[in-house]
């Protein structure tokens, strides 16, 4: 006897009574068909399992910003060699990726990401509500990189010699964001991010870094960045004080490009 029709096996895996009595008998006795049915049934069981895990979630946009900022700091700017391009089936001159770099490294992948999302199922969330499958598309808001700022330790704080950080300033149509990453040892207390004024006294607290020493902060609208032009990260003790601890871990200055953007504009 021939093997059970694969379409009938698939329907039986879904719990339908498809095919003839002969099909059912064969699928129960033939080792090959029985194994195939078991494989497909397991997929169905996994799909219908009501526990956690059935929904796919898109990470928030700052995750990519942090990855790009961290990985972009690596010496990984490997241009595609003609040999590698040939191996990929494209001739070297046709590879558009080796053009001179305009702007900052994280900018290009970000734009790719925004445009790529429309064509990909990356943002698809499949929910289960009653008998209907709900399909929802989420798209990250368009942001552009305004500045990427290296944060370095200060000579007067030798204990932070090995610390380093990055601040990526991004603008959306409505607001400006600062994505901050710090590489410093774990210490008692917490790390806080500040904007320092030119007088060296006034400052604005942007917020605290999380346990992974990263954070995304909204720059308060209307902040005069000509005046509050430096970024500072402090180590704060758990003493309840809202003041800067005077222990600066790293610091950096906003470049001119970032100062002019009092109101953010898209692309």
């Amino acid at each position, binding site marked *: 006897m021939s093997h059970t029709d694969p379409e009938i096996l698939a329907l039986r895996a879904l719990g339908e009574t498809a095919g003839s009595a002969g099909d059912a008998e064969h699928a129960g006795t033939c080792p090959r068909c029985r194994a195939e049915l078991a494989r497909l049934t397991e997929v169905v069981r996994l799909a219908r399992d009501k526990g956690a895990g059935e929904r796919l979630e898109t990470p928030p946009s700052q995750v990519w910003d942090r990855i790009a900022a961290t990985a972009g700091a690596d010496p990984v700017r490997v241009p595609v060699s003609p040999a590698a391009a040939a191996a990929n089936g494209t001739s070297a001159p046709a590879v558009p990726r080796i053009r001179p770099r305009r702007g900052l490294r994280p900018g290009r992948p970000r734009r790719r*990401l925004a445009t790529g999302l429309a064509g990909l199922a990356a943002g698809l969330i499949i929910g289960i509500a009653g008998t209907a499958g709900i399909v929802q598309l989420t798209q990250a808001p368009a942001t552009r990189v305004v500045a990427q700022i290296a944060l370095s330790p200060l000579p007067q704080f030798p204990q932070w010699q090995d610390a380093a950080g990055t601040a990526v300033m991004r603008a959306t149509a409505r607001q400006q964001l600062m994505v901050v990453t710090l590489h410093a040892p774990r210490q008692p207390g917490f790390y806080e991010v500040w904007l320092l004024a030119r007088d060296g006294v006034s400052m604005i607290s942007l917020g605290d870094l999380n346990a992974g020493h990263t954070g995304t902060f909204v720059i308060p609208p209307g902040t005069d960045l000509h005046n509050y032009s430096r970024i500072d990260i402090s180590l704060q003790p758990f003493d309840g004080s809202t003041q800067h601890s005077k222990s600066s871990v790293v610091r950096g200055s906003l470049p001119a490009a970032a100062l002019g953007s009092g109101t953010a504009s898209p692309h």
Partner: protein
Amino acid sequence: MDQSPDEDVAAAFSGGQPDALALVYERFGPLVYSIALRSLGVRSDAEDVTQQAFVSAWRSRDTFDRRRGTLGGWLVTITRNKVADALRERQRDGRVLLHVAGGVAVAAPQTPSDRVVDKIVLADELARLPESQRLVMVLAFYSDLTHKKIAHVLGLPLGTVKSHIRRGLQRLRSRLEADGVAH
């Protein structure tokens, strides 16, 4: 043909092309993030693990061998390791917190179960099916409709629905065998 977009991404990645990390993130970001989120339960922790997993994958991309497995499976393994690290760290912090707080109960960390990982891999592949096939599979899995009723509801020929179901199930099974953990 089904697997070719993923293979293109894997080729760009192991070739170290500058845009490859962005491509890999576009393709696998939701998979990695969802596994981290389901395993850790806290969004900020899942974001940290997602960041760590992609940065680590990028830095060690020389060790990825396309002949030995899929890029998705490799990323799933890295993600599970990072989740395990995060759970260990949480346990350590929890112990410290417990000590400081004088014995306040701290929730026991959960290990990322193989089943959770497999379910997210399955959801990821389901999301990548062509529109009409995905709709057929979603109805077949989650509604009480038979394939005949699905054909009627969607206005598709019966043969098309049956073929979508057979190919869909087999594609999901292949993806699970390639990238999942509990075979």
